């Protein structure tokens, strides 16, 4: 590997790093404390940054990107370090506590570009959760985020192009690449595998188990699935995964569009934005007949209405301040009014075009009788009920056993060992008159496996049927070429990125964010770290949304890498820092 060449060029540098390291040993060395320490310690005015990420067991690619960045930050005279945390701790630091300078991670994104509203709108800068963890605020970007919601079709596409251009200039975060999703399955026990993503609701529909097979053995490399089933938890999962199996939503995304799920049907009428008016979308939603939650209580329009109210304020108005959920924040933010017409029918009114509005149909429908009871119990036991936003008991509890209305119900779990779900026989997908493939397999057992290589080996040795977690690029060569083993491949909407904490120096300044973006050689990372199993990108949205000016042309069109083939041109990079107003001391260290 040729990794060194550009870093820690002189001895003085190395020694001071060592000294800082030893000093660090004596005290706690979490990222931010480190920064404060060096600010008050000997290296008074040296710029010092800590990169938060997960260890290789959590995401091998992320830690390699982080070290690539760390080397290049050091090379331009910044005192850089890595702050490695477990997956849930990483999300805690980034999403809840906002305790980071910059981080490397993978964003779950969503089927619709409106997830950017949640990620970046300044209205959410002070909340905890997936809503604006970066503390980013920009009036022009807010304007673009709002504008794309008010229109549909081609007009929306144009506005999203403008939004992407704004983001590429301001760089609230720097998208690196879209990884490919690889999985392996055994086809001899269970067949009927199609292209559906196992994280989606259609993932386990229509599978055809052999006669004596009643359990699908699924492997996941993330133990959090066995610890928490709370649909609102921000830190215990990135994507929906098991929540999609346990809970239903009114509609669900399939092949890029929304299709009816718990709702039998819905009708929308949209009055698009006129000169001075907001767009309005009205939807009439009809639920399927006779659906029940896993505790035999009926699913009614009231539960849907409750879910919307609850996501907006998990304290249901009983606390001093509202406490919006740390997830699904922007899904429900266009919703202006909910009217329950009957047990099965409700009318919704949104201040948006239908594309952005319809995201509200994809949130999990929660049983009112269980969650209201939880809120009441918690409100009554404490004298001053605060319900701290994004962090209070209700949004962090493990919610085991989870009670939803989805195609699978909770059966058992053992922490860090497995989570087992069983088929919910009363689910509407099992009905004759519902035009959806039905669930044939009786049980889904998610076994926790230590890594990609060992899960592939287990599937190969008939110890499991499917690797549900995305396999890491380095392990892909070990997939055996055997007739009963299929290799599934699909593009990902998720993207690796570097996030900047815009709340604090130096990344409150967009120029600093752009300079650091120029230290990343995305093309090289895709080749070296992902073995080519990823697509480099300058934008957080896939190709179909990207305007001409931002298309990938071998390098980032806005913030190209200072150098080539992974080798940083230190002179050029340092010049760029100086041109932006940063100063170096006699030892070549970047001053704060």
């Amino acid at each position: 590997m040729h990794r060194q060449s550009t870093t820690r060029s002189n001895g003085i540098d190395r020694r001071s790093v060592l000294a800082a390291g030893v000093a660090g040993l004596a005290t706690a060395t979490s990222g931010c404390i480190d920064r404060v320490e060096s600010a008050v310690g000997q290296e008074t005015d040296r710029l010092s940054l800590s990169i938060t990420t997960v260890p290789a067991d959590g995401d091998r690619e992320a830690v390699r990107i982080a070290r690539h960045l760390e080397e290049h930050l050091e090379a331009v005279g910044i005192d850089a370090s890595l702050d490695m945390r477990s997956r849930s701790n990483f999300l805690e630091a980034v999403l809840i506590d906002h305790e980071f300078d910059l981080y490397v991670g993978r964003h779950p994104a969503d089927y619709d570009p409106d997830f950017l509203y949640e990620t970046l709108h300044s209205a959410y800068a002070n909340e905890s959760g997936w809503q604006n963890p970066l503390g980013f605020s920009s009036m022009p970007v807010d304007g673009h985020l709002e504008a794309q919601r008010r229109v549909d079709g081609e007009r929306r596409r144009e506005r999203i192009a403008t939004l992407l251009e704004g983001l590429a200039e301001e760089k609230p975060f720097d998208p690196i690449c879209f990884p490919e999703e690889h999985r392996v399955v055994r086809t001899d026990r269970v067949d009927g595998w199609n292209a559906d993503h196992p994280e989606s609701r259609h993932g386990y529909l229509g599978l055809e188990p052999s006669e004596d097979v009643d359990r699908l053995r699924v492997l996941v490399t993330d133990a959090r699935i066995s610890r928490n089933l709370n649909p609102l938890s921000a830190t215990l999962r990135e994507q929906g995964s098991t929540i999609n199996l346990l809970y239903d939503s009114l509609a669900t995304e399939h092949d890029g569009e929304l299709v009816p799920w718990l709702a039998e049907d819905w009708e929308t009428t949209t009055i698009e934005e006129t000169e001075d008016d907001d767009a309005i979308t009205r939807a009439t939603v009809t639920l399927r007949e006779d659906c029940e939650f896993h505790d035999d209580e009926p699913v009614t329009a009231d539960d849907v209405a409750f879910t919307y109210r609850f996501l907006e304020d998990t304290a249901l108005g009983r606390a001093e301040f509202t406490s919006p959920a740390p997830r699904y924040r922007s899904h429900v933010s266009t919703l202006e009014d909910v009217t329950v017409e009957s047990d099965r029918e409700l009318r919704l009114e949104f201040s948006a075009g239908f594309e952005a509005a319809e995201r509200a149909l994809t949130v999990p429908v929660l049983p009112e009788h269980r969650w209201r009871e939880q809120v009441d119990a918690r409100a009554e036991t404490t004298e001053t009920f605060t319900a701290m936003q994004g962090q209070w008991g209700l949004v962090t509890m493990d919610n085991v056993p989870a009670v939803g209305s989805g195609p699978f119900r909770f059966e058992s779990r053992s922490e860090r060992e497995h989570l087992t779900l069983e088929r919910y026989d009363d689910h509407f997908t099992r009905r004759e008159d519902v035009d959806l493939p039905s669930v044939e397999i009786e049980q889904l057992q998610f076994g926790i496996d230590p890594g990609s290589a060992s899960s592939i080996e287990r599937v190969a040795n008939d110890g499991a049927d499917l690797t549900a977690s995305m396999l890491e690029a380095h392990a892909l060569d070990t997939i055996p070429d055997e007739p009963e083993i299929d290799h599934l491949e699909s593009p990902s909407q998720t993207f690796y990125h570097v996030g900047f904490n815009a709340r604090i120096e130096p990344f409150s300044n967009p120029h600093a964010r752009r300079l650091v973006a120029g230290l990343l050689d995305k093309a090289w990372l895709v080749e070296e770290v992902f073995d080519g199993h990823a697509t480099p990108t300058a934008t957080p949205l896939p190709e179909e949304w990207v305007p001409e000016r931002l298309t990938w042309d071998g390098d980032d069109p806005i913030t190209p890498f200072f150098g080539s083939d992974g080798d940083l041109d230190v002179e050029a990079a340092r010049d760029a820092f100086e041109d932006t107003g940063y100063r170096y001391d006699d030892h070549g260290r970047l001053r704060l």
Partner: protein
Amino acid sequence: MLVQVLLQLAVVVTLLTLAGIAVIVGRYRLRDTRREWASRLRAATPITVVLIVVLLGNGVARQVVPDLSWMFGWNLTWAIYDIEGQFILWLQSFETSALTAFFSFVYIYGYVFLLVFPVVAYFALSNTRPLRELLTAYTLNYVLGLVLYTLVIAYGPRNMMPELVEALMYDTYPRYQHLTRQVNRNTNVFPSLHTSLAATVGILAYQTRAVYPRWAVVAVPLAISVAISTMYLGIHWAIDVVAGIVLAYVCVELAGLLVGRWSVTERFDVGNPLSRLR
């Protein structure tokens, strides 16, 4: 998969131990053992009970310790890497597939044999003191190790430099990861308990070299190989290994002080090992 690995481990270690009994322990000691086993067992029972309690407690504590550590432990990964990251790379530069196979074998099978065999060998001695010291030292290793694991969060080299640590055992032999994750969490690398337990056996083997000269010749190099394997395989940093050796030394010294002082016949307080330290 786990069952398969465990079975394999049991077979290999049993075979090694039988060979060890034949070559190292010898016929005469076995003959005496058949006569005296009851009294020796009685002498070793209290510390064995304590050790079992500690091991069971350890199993429970391991579920809680990582969460506690994240709350108030020190995350030292970066500090350790910054000081000695280059050393592991240097060690890795000697990587060959034969060495990887050898060190993987030592890390799994050699290590378990190293811990199991001396229990059998010292049990075959009329003097039960070495056996009691050994079991006491094991107990202390687990207790002190757990305290350090709670105070320090650190990820090993393989988690920091997955691309440079080329001889990753878990890439070459992924099945072993099923075994190791049963006994360890990836944030618990400081100190290396593999090293400290191996070094404990090594030091005691050296101390009993008059009785078991052949064992000393086997145990000391094997203990050193275990220590090197943890670094070569990218599981531990050199600092973890040094800390492991220090821990081993402390445990052996303490065991020497403690054994015989609290005899069950004099005091009924078998106590937990923590109270013994006071």
